[in-house]
């Protein structure tokens, strides 16, 4: 029994030790990093962000010689974890992994505990996955985006589109489509993209503005039909799917994207070094295959990312306001 108890205590001890791994110490950019780095991921383990953040963290760990730990702080559509990250030490050992959600949040939440543009400094958009208009062929006869719009105009409110939840980019991409094409589609929110796809395949809903990542394999399997990609350029993952402009709805562009931010006030040398390391990691072979499978591209970095974030906040704000999307 004695040994059992000792083993139990040892286990407790090691578990505690891992929680207190990060303490504050004076920062010197020369020796950075000399202890593990934390990436605060504001979504639950296994969410969309994880699919990109975890391979990236693994690659950075290899490059930096220090562990890059993903700290999942899920809740409230990613705003809870963002609030926690905003108050983290700006010593270059905590970074924030945000997403398109954080540029939508300012217009749909009544109040937030952080300011995306003031509390964080952009490093890089590491992955951008375009949305794609997909329909269940058993429910919708349209063979092209034009036919779909014609049908929707002739039958207002008849077609339903699913989303991964209220205020997600799936939802707002749909609202953007409605506004651009002046059609009336019924929104059906789900608890995540998985259950939504299940119902799209089963024909409980007619169509969706899904992320290319989860749709690509269903498209290849022939269970759903893609009508247009909400992007400027075609994607090699589904090369024969026309862009929105080619299909006749110019300006319909929406991506689910994921980026890394530093906490505002982090030393510039460290930010630069992290930016360089991320750029290098994104060229690694292991990352390339993961990104390609998800139909993801690399996005703007540094100042370009700041401008991109600003325009995203504005654009999503207009759509959210027009469609009166709110979470309170």
């Amino acid at each position, binding site marked *: 029994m004695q040994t059992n108890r000792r083993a139990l205590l040892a286990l407790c001890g090691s*578990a505690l030790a891992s929680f207190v791994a990060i303490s504050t110490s004076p920062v010197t950019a020369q020796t950075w990093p000399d202890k593990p780095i934390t990436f605060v991921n504001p979504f639950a383990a296994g969410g969309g962000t994880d699919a990109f953040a975890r391979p990236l963290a693994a690659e950075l760990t290899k490059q930096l010689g220090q562990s890059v730990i993903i700290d999942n702080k899920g*809740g409230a559509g990613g705003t809870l974890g963002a609030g926690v990250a905003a108050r983290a030490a700006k010593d270059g050992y905590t970074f924030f992994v945000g997403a398109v959600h954080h540029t939508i949040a300012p217009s749909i939440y009544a109040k937030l505990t952080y300011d995306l543009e003031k509390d964080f400094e952009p490093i890089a958009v590491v992955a951008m996955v375009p949305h794609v208009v997909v329909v269940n062929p058993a429910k919708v006869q349209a063979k092209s985006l034009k036919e779909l719009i014609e049908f929707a105009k002739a039958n207002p409110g008849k077609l339903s589109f699913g989303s991964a939840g209220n205020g997600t980019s799936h939802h707002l991409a749909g609202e953007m489509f409605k506004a651009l094409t002046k059609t009336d589609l019924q929104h059906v929110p789900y608890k995540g993209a998985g*259950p939504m796809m299940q119902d799209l395949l089963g024909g409980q809903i007619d169509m969706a503005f899904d992320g290319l990542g989860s749709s690509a394999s269903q498209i290849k399997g022939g269970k759903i039909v893609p009508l247009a990609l909400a992007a400027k350029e075609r994607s090699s993952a589904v090369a024969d799917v026309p862009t929105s402009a080619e299909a006749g709805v110019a300006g319909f562009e929406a991506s689910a994207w994921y980026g890394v931010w530093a906490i505002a006030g982090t030393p510039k040398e460290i930010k630069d070094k992290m930016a360089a390391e991320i750029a290098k990691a994104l060229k690694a072979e292991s990352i390339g295959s993961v990104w390609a499978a998800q139909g993801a591209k690399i996005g703007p970095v540094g100042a370009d990312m700041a401008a991109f974030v600003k325009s995203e906040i504005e654009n999503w704000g207009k759509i959210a306001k027009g469609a009166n999307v709110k979470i309170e």
Partner: protein
Amino acid sequence: MEVFDGLALGFATALTITNLSYCLLGVFLGTAIGVLPGLGPAATIAILLPATFALPPVTALIMLAGIFYGAQYGGSTTAILVNLPGETSSVVTALDGYQMARQGKAGRALATAAIASFFAGTVCTFLIALFAPPLTEIALKFGPAEYFSLMVLGLIASIVLASGSILHALGMIIIGLLLGVVGTDVNAGTQRFTFGFLELADGIGFVIVAMGIFGIGEIVANLENEGTRDVSIKTVSGLMPTREDWRRMVAPVLRGTALGSVLGILPGGGAALASFGAYALEKKVSRNRAELGKGAIEGVAAPEAANNAGAQMSFIPMLTLGIPANPVMALMIGAMIIQGIQPGPSVIKEQPALFWGVIASMWIGNIMLLVLNLPLIGLWVRMISVPYHFLYPSILAFCSIGVLSLSNSPFDVYLMALFGFLGYVFKKLDCEPAPLLLGFILGR
């Protein structure tokens, strides 16, 4: 026969030394995290995900699958021994399992749980191999009307879960439903009963409620009563089921397996509903239904078979369509993506060794779990003879660490303490917590 060719390929894949060792590692890890309350397979798999980079895809999936169904085995251990459900699915097992432990039948309860799980796992492996694609089609037909009917059935069945007053049970179901609707409304985006706490915006975690009300509440109530605060008041009689136990176990295991297989293919709360459903079914049809709730072996066998069947069947939508039925499956899909495999309908054709290898490994893993768990029973049973002033603080510490690991939020630990207090109050008022938990699941 195509299926037998497939299975042959699967066993050839799964029976290599590498894959066997990772399967063993997976089920061992799974058992360990199942035993530790609060620590769930989702968090473990998320942490291990980058480590799977270096492994071949089949090996990685075999290990991760092992963690998942291993946790279903392990979760019942603490449920039976100290009334602390380690996993969602083992809440029901705690009802009769813990009573058996108090009567000195802990070993027999643990063995029953392991055997029932093994049987269900075996049946489901073959169901998946034979019928995965057609079963997927059935799951896709399940629309809003069907889910509504299922929930109504669940609400009616939850009354049956209680062995005491019907009025108390009704009250508990309603409290459970109300707790379940805490969080952001899916349709309107409105926040319900969050009282301004952002932490409540996604609702209350099931594990928090279950561990608080069952585990912590039980500890508080036990401490109050000096005569019974040591759990091992009776000497432990026999570790293995008796001939009578075997006889009583057969029908409930069969019924539990059938129900779990049906509910498991549905996305969402399928597996969690399975164990509740199986228990409710026993209450209606078992010959020994009067004993249920007082330590009947049927109350362990049926839900354990059902939850393992449900867990196994939840692989179907993931393997055939690439759609996750629960967060763990979402992580498995993530693991495939990391390997450059796009999960989806084409996996069976393009990656037959992966598809069949994982299925074959499930059966092998189930055998490993049985072999691993039966000898461990003697050790586990001794755990409850640890004096309460050592046992209870360690349980509290593990619960807190486990709950903290859910989303790294201290708020959840306070919430668990609150539910612990509620659990104590309910016990004093003679209100049984099982209907509350089923109401909670249905309310979500």
